[in-house]
């Protein structure tokens, strides 16, 4: 009788555990309560809004990319909605390094989740300089945004389009900082695998992919003017998801370091797709606009249901499983 009862209780416990899906993620030794990440440039100007998004359920939050000097960014309009997506050309506005570091310190204090400090430079040396300064604020990661145009290359192409430049940025940054380094890649290259490989070899701890696609342009037909003041802007949102998924799939084949996958994710299904492609965590940017800041909790709930349906216990059962 006793042993029968014991078996019965054990069965209940097993069934219960079986229903539980573990959404916790781990990247380069840093633990995230769940795999959703607020990516760079979305509600990342003020520490207060980062803390708000952390409370709303994001597993980690990223600051707006910080640069070496005060910049106003591009003039308005900086966003325009297109079919199933958004074009933006905010243009890396930044209050300056001192004020940014102060705000970052506040964010690290106020947000109860890992804070990723995104940054950029106009030269390789500036990347190193900014990395050193923001590392002092003790973020969980620093994230090098090599997907924005720089001034070293006369054609204004991002560092992220050249294997060699990308590797140099990584090497310099790793010299100046001991905080784990994420490198954020642009999808607008003919071969993203090689870039990913270069930054891994140069010492990057993690890859974020992808930044916005294109750029794109929206022209108003009555006035015959491009709407964005910068004329062109990066495309984000559901329209780019297939491209982002393919980039992450390609990068996963090339490197061993973890990937934060992003680009058009707005549901648990989308998150599962990105994890299957090879991401260890997923960024949710433009969907904050379409679904509100409840999107992080909602995506986690939806993802949990899909994992139950699939019979997955933890994210390990999803990550990279589309490769075989």
């Amino acid at each position, binding site marked *: 009788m006793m042993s029968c009862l014991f078996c019965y209780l054990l069965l209940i416990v097993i069934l219960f555990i079986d229903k539980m899906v573990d959404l916790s993620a781990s990247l380069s030794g840093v633990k995230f309560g769940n795999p959703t990440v607020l990516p760079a440039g*979305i*509600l990342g100007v003020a520490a207060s809004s980062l803390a*708000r998004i952390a409370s709303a359920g994001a597993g980690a939050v990223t600051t707006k990319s910080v640069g070496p000097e005060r910049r106003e960014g591009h003039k308005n*309009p900086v*966003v325009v909605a297109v079919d199933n997506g958004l074009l933006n050309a905010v243009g890396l*506005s*930044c209050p300056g390094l001192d004020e940014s570091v102060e705000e970052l310190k506040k964010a690290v204090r106020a947000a109860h989740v890992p804070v990723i400090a995104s940054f950029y430079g106009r030269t390789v040396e500036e990347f190193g300089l900014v990395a050193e300064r923001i590392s002092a604020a003790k973020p969980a990661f620093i994230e090098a945004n090599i997907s924005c145009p720089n001034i070293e290359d006369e054609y204004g192409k991002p560092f992220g389009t050249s294997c060699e430049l990308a590797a140099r940025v990584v090497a310099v940054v790793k010299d100046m900082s001991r905080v784990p380094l994420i490198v954020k890649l642009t999808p607008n290259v003919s071969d993203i695998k090689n870039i990913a490989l270069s930054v891994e070899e140069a010492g990057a701890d993690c890859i974020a992919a992808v930044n916005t696609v294109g750029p794109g342009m929206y022209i108003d037909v009555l006035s015959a003017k491009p709407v964005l003041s910068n004329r062109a802007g990066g495309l984000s949102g559901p329209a780019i998801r297939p491209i982002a998924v393919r980039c992450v799939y390609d990068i996963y084949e090339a490197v061993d370091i973890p990937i934060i996958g992003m680009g058009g994710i707005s549901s648990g299904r989308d998150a599962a797709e990105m994890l299957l492609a090879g991401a260890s965590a997923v960024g949710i940017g433009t969907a*904050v606009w379409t679904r509100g800041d409840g999107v992080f909790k909602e995506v986690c709930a939806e993802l949990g249901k899909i994992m139950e349906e699939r019979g997955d216990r933890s994210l390990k059962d999803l990550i990279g499983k589309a490769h075989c």
Partner: protein
Amino acid sequence: MDTFETVKISGVRKETPTVNTLVLDKRSCRMEYGQFYMLWIPGVGEKPYACSGANEKSMEITVKHAGPFSGKLQNLKKGDLIGIRGPYGKGYFTPKGKNPCYVAGGLGIVPMISLLEGTKGKKATVILGAKTKEEIIFADRIKKTGADIRIVTDDGSAGIKAFPHQLLSGVIKEKKIDSVYCCGPEAMMREVLKIVSEKKIPAQFSLERYMKCGIGLCGSCALDPSGLLVCKDGPVFDAERIKDSEFGSYKRDSAGSKTRI
């Protein structure tokens, strides 16, 4: 996801030497009191503006010449094209109380005029402030609603020489005010917030912060320490939500830098 439209200006009205009202050839969509629009002058720029009137055929905006963009905007002519997106904001003016008081400084009456005209039955009092006599706007429209209007000017050239908030305590007592709506310079709004907090009167404030996206993504309009967004959670906030905040002390500029108010 979002609507962007280019429409024609169908008329321009002079309100004061520095303020014009533009009539847009656009059917008003369903709009709540106090929401705003992003207006684009093709090839020039884009900024947030309130709606100062709307009907089946057109909607109006009222613009003060305050800088290069607003200068160009208010000088648009009949037939010129203008881009518009919105209405934006999930924080509206909500009609409360029987004896509301409106406290408006400068163009502050603009986002509140539709609320006033849309709730005519109430015994409203409007404290309408302006720098000088010439700068007073919408006095006639306010009178037409039957509201009790109290004009104040900085230089005393019309009404009482005072700032709007200086009349508020008296009006609250005199008119048994049970709700307050306020829009104007932030320093004035801060004083109004103090008064209504002390007297525990429900109040709503329409805020201005530097806006880029207008849709809750870029984060440039965030309020410390709540992280509330003026473009998405506002622009109108209940007093309690902004009481212990940056409101009245600092705001961020276009680079994200804090500047004292």
